[in-house]
């Protein structure tokens, strides 16, 4: 006990300021900050000088100038008399169209292949493995070129178009299919569809409430499908089938009429879907493998069939593992859509690049790109985080 007195606490140890972590931290941060500030100052000074020398006025005023170039694919009305601003909006919409469709298709293929890699069936397993290993290990740009130069541009010329069912055609100018023309009273069908969706929500809530109260189940799936198909069909019949089609017709050089999908879009869309699907497949496989076998066995022991087990036990748990990496794959797909520039699909980057060459407004265009892509990333991650939070394990 006497030894306790020998250790005396003198309060703060007297260390040299050089070794004080707090002081060091502040010094390092001040140095870093000053260094960065000086660097940025130098860059900004150089940039201003360079811009003045080449007579480029900075600012976003150029956006209201006449663009003077045409865009092959556009969702909204656009011609060469439109402004640069509108051209950029066209590009953004094109990016969004290909990204949304790509995400949708890639998810479907990815889930199928991911489940297929875990199949009991040896042949299916091998085919899925080959698919994943091939597409994961080649650059996305090559896949885009493959579809564009390898497949779509060697299709026959319009006069020898390949005829497909339902009056659609495939040729080197793209994919052509009939355009539906809605007649009078067609809005009623849309209204019926909305009504059906509203009723499905209502039925689902009532069925859940009834099951909680009485334990009796209600065939929600079949009722929903019936409502979803039946109500619009009924409206369709009652309004006297107000639908006709404008079929693509063969003219001298091209097909006219109908709706056409350009090969640039098709190539980009197919390439992004197939490429990203291979990554999604791996994520899905890892997610399903991440669920312990005991879960399946317990579910069987409770008397659930294998389909029900998959739907009620495995997938809800696997989704928790799958969603975060899936989000980053969706973001990758969106960012990879900028490769459109290599085959001339007018997305945001391609149109921005044209504007950049025409006006020389490099800083502004790059700033717009950055803001848009960061915005898209942020929006996607906010949505996926919300979805993830809904799916996350609720612990009591």
């Amino acid at each position, binding site marked *: 006990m006497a030894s306790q007195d020998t250790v005396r606490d003198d309060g703060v140890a007297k260390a040299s300021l050089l070794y004080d972590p707090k002081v060091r*931290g502040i010094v390092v941060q001040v140095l870093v900050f000053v260094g960065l500030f000086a660097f940025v100052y130098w860059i900004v000074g150089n*940039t201003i000088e*360079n811009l003045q020398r080449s007579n480029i006025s900075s600012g976003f005023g150029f956006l209201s100038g006449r663009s003077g170039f045409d865009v092959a694919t556009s969702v909204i009305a656009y011609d060469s008399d439109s402004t640069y601003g509108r051209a950029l909006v066209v590009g953004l919409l094109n990016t969004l169209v290909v990204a949304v469709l790509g995400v949708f298709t890639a998810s479907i293929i990815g889930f199928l292949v991911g489940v297929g890699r875990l199949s009991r*069936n040896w042949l*299916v397993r091998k085919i899925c493995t080959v698919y994943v290993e091939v597409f994961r290990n080649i*650059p996305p740009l090559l896949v885009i070129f493959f579809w564009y130069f390898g497949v779509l541009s060697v299709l026959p010329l319009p006069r020898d178009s390949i005829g497909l069912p339902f009056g659609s055609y495939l040729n080197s100018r793209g994919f052509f299919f009939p355009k539906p023309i809605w007649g009078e009273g067609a809005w009623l069908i849309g209204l019926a569809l909305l009504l059906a969706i509203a009723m499905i929500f209502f039925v689902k809530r009532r069925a859940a409430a009834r099951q909680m109260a009485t334990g009796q189940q209600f065939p929600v799936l079949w009722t929903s499908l019936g409502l979803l198909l039946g109500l619009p069909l009924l409206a369709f019949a009652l309004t006297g089938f107000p639908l006709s089609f404008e079929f693509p017709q063969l003219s001298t050089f091209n097909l006219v009429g109908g709706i056409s999908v350009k090969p640039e879009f098709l190539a980009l869309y197919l390439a992004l879907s197939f490429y990203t699907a291979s990554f999604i497949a791996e994520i899905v496989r890892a997610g399903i493998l991440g669920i312990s076998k005991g879960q399946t066995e317990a579910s069987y022991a409770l008397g659930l069939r294998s389909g029900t087990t998959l739907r009620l036990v495995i997938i809800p748990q696997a989704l928790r593992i799958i969603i975060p990496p899936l989000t980053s794959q969706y973001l990758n797909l969106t960012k990879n859509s900028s490769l459109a520039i290599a085959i001339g699909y007018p997305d945001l*980057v391609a149109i921005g690049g044209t504007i950049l060459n025409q006006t020389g407004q*490099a800083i502004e265009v790059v700033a717009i790109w950055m803001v848009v892509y*960061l915005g898209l990333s942020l929006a996607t991650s906010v949505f996926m985080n919300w979805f993830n939070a809904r799916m996350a394990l609720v612990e009591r």
Partner: protein
Amino acid sequence: MQEHDLSFVRAELVANQPAPRGQKGFGHWLRRNMFATPFDGVLTVLAVLFIAYSLPPLLNWAFIDAQWTGSDRSFCATVAQGGVQPDGWSGACWAFVGAKFQQFLYGRYPIDERWRVALTGVLFVLLIVPLLVPRAPHKALNAILLFVVFPVVAFFLLVGGWFGLEYVETPLWGGLMVTLVLSFVGIAVSLPLGIVLALGRRSQMPVVKMICVIFIETVRGVPLVTVLFMASVMLPLFLPAGVTFDKFLRALIGVALFASAYMAEVVRGGLQAIPKGQYEGADSLGLGYWQKMGLIVLPQALKLVIPGIVNTFIGLFKDTSLVYIIGMFDLLGAVRQNFSDATWASPQTPMTGLVFAGFVFWCFCFGMSRYSIFMERLLDTGHKR
């Protein structure tokens, strides 16, 4: 009553019995793996139909009907297209790849100087193979040679202008050598830079942390194409008048910065997975920050994230193909450029060139991923948490 004891204790083991007839052989394997359930059977039939439908034409195209030799496009075009092949012919035009092989490797690098690129390649292989083989000795010396000496030697060899070597400007570079140079520099720069950024992001100093977070999140949020555009269009604006950067160098900077942001996130994952006790243990031993990180934390953290690091390397390797968009010709760019060569342009040329380029990329990427799996098993010390 003892002579009527009916109990029986076997003194020796029964000899192993063969498996029942229904439980062995090819038939059993087939039943188990292909026709376990009716649904499985349907799947198998569909899969067989799919293979029977797609594989023979593919093999036909790639090998049997392929044109292996020839001196111009007429060998790979049908009569209607101005060639010698019968109408309806479709096959790979390997003659095109053969004729352009040198260009796919070296781009427009002067023919008399190509031995320099080949020598660099041989040096690279000689240095990297012993580094990758775990049993080869002198790892530290090897690494110094590869990451310090080799880049200097390679620079003088490839660029030239010294020691009587002719100066070769980078716009003449192309093909696989550009792909490999970009990837090597990208990998060699992005790993250390990514580690520094990851450490910065987990730093206690708010200013350092904020700078790292902003850099990482901005770069990760935008596509590589825009980063490359930035590097090629905006870098000249940032520099004082008169100072110009080589286009190749600009692309290198773009690719390396882009990859380092992704690398930083991978390394951060590893740093977060190291238990707090390791950090505290290092602190209690009196190690300084860099000693703590370099000797205790990073060796464990990096080992944990080898798959992620290699994935980033693979991503970087694939991403080098995007320099085509800012007007440089890597392997894919060189192949793409030759589609429009009038001597060889035929309907079969693009597909053949792309299949060749795809195969080369595939070999490199697949090799890297297999090596990472091998390394992961080798380094697995069994300390699974």
